[in-house]
């Protein structure tokens, strides 16, 4: 209903850095088997075991916007191979960080899932992305894959994710976003061992409100008043 009257702008790009840090932490959490390290520490058990490297592994990014790209930038310095999926793959044809880019057809997601050791979902929630990562997608995961969601809960089929975690198809998951927030205590995700849960706060830095407000006050408000083009316009039809 707002289509012709109001311009919507957002704070995209402001949270990318902190979220990219979270993604690398989540990958390492599983690669170095931090749960086992901490368990051993609690038991005062000095038990050496092999650790994995992220170097040489593949990171698949579903939704290659600012956040996806910030993750790719960091992961590439770790020596990871990057595969990405976005609506308009041609936009990233010459991207410095991506080794392979897929479009959003069903095959694209299947390929990405089958090639990735670590999958990051950083897509916004739109009519097109709702339930995008479904049971079919999880059926195609690589052995021992880890799934990370920091986009929006509704993009993944949470039941299918839970199933994939319970039957061991996924080695683990790190979730900062959920279909329902706060996550109800009755949700079985709380009880799974191989999952890292955060209360949608991995972008909640002490300065984020400050920076987002500064962006409005220093960038878009003056632009608006001077009748100039605004930064970060949202395509209302597309939803992001």
């Amino acid at each position: 209903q707002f289509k012709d009257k109001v311009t919507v702008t957002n704070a995209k790009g402001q949270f990318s850095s902190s979220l990219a840090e979270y993604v690398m932490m989540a990958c390492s959490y599983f690669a170095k088997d931090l749960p086992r390290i901490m368990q051993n520490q609690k038991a005062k058990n000095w038990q050496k075991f092999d650790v994995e490297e992220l170097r040489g592994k593949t990171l698949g990014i579903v939704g290659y916007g600012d956040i996806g790209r910030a993750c790719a930038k960091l992961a590439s310095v770790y020596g990871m191979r990057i595969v990405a999926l976005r609506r308009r793959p041609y936009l990233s044809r010459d991207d410095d960080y991506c080794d392979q880019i897929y479009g959003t057809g069903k095959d694209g997601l299947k390929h990405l899932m089958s090639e990735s050791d670590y999958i990051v979902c950083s897509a916004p929630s739109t009519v097109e992305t709702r339930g995008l990562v479904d049971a079919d997608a999880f059926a195609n995961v690589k052995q021992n894959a880890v799934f990370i969601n920091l986009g929006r809960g509704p993009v993944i089929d949470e039941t299918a994710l839970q199933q994939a975690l319970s039957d061991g198809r996924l080695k683990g998951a790190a979730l900062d976003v959920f279909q329902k927030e706060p996550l109800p205590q009755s949700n079985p995700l709380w009880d799974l061992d191989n999952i890292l849960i955060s209360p949608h706060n991995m972008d909640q830095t002490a300065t984020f409100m400050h920076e987002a407000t500064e962006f409005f006050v220093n960038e878009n408000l003056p632009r608006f008043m001077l009748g100039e083009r605004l930064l970060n316009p949202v395509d209302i039809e597309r939803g992001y």
Partner: protein
Amino acid sequence: QTRSAGVDFITSQGLAQSSVTLTNAKGMYSSTLAEYTMMACSYFAKDLPRLLRQKSAKNWEKYNVLELRGATMGIIGYGDIGRACAILAKAYGMKVVALRRKPKLSMFDPYCDQVYGNEDISKLMEESDYVVVAAPLTEATKGLVSRDVLSHAKKDAVIINVGRGPIIDEAALIDALQSGSLKGAGLDVTAIEPLPADSPLWELDNVLLSPHSMDNTATFELESTEFFVNENLPRFVRGMDLLNPVDKSAGY
């Protein structure tokens, strides 16, 4: 040729004076140790222990997280491991301050914002949010991170040790962790290994402890053996210069 990077276990006096050439496997562990270092920094920045406690209690409680971006990493011992950490830290947008025996060697290093010699270690401590000890154990580095040095730590600093336990005064470290003058520590090495059961380090909840295993990749034995077989052995047989020579008098 040792299969390890560390050669501190070789204590023979005779070896230092002899004409035997000693080479090591330095550089092979840097990548995985740098990954561990960034994980340990994020462990404290995002308060991973709090996340895990909240999960056990099914408690959805939002809290602020810290960013590594903009924070300072101080690296004590700027060799292969230190440099690998610097490369990652820079990618995260951190400021990097390094300390090494011969600071001039890193004067133009693009991954260091500042390089200090050993005499400026307290300065490094005062500037660093995350202190990474990545030095080898030698006469010069034993006890280098002393009680006095630790007292110069920045508020809420985190210390990470991927070098050797004895470089840090462990009793002083424990005191600093217990009193809160250090926010936390990530220790992959300790003064005595295996760590004795009565060490307070096991029970401190601001310590992440691992059994000197963060360089134990499935492929490390293969890679260091391959290095010997494919690189140094042919060089030796042909009378060529060997890679990774150890300076026996310096100890690394």
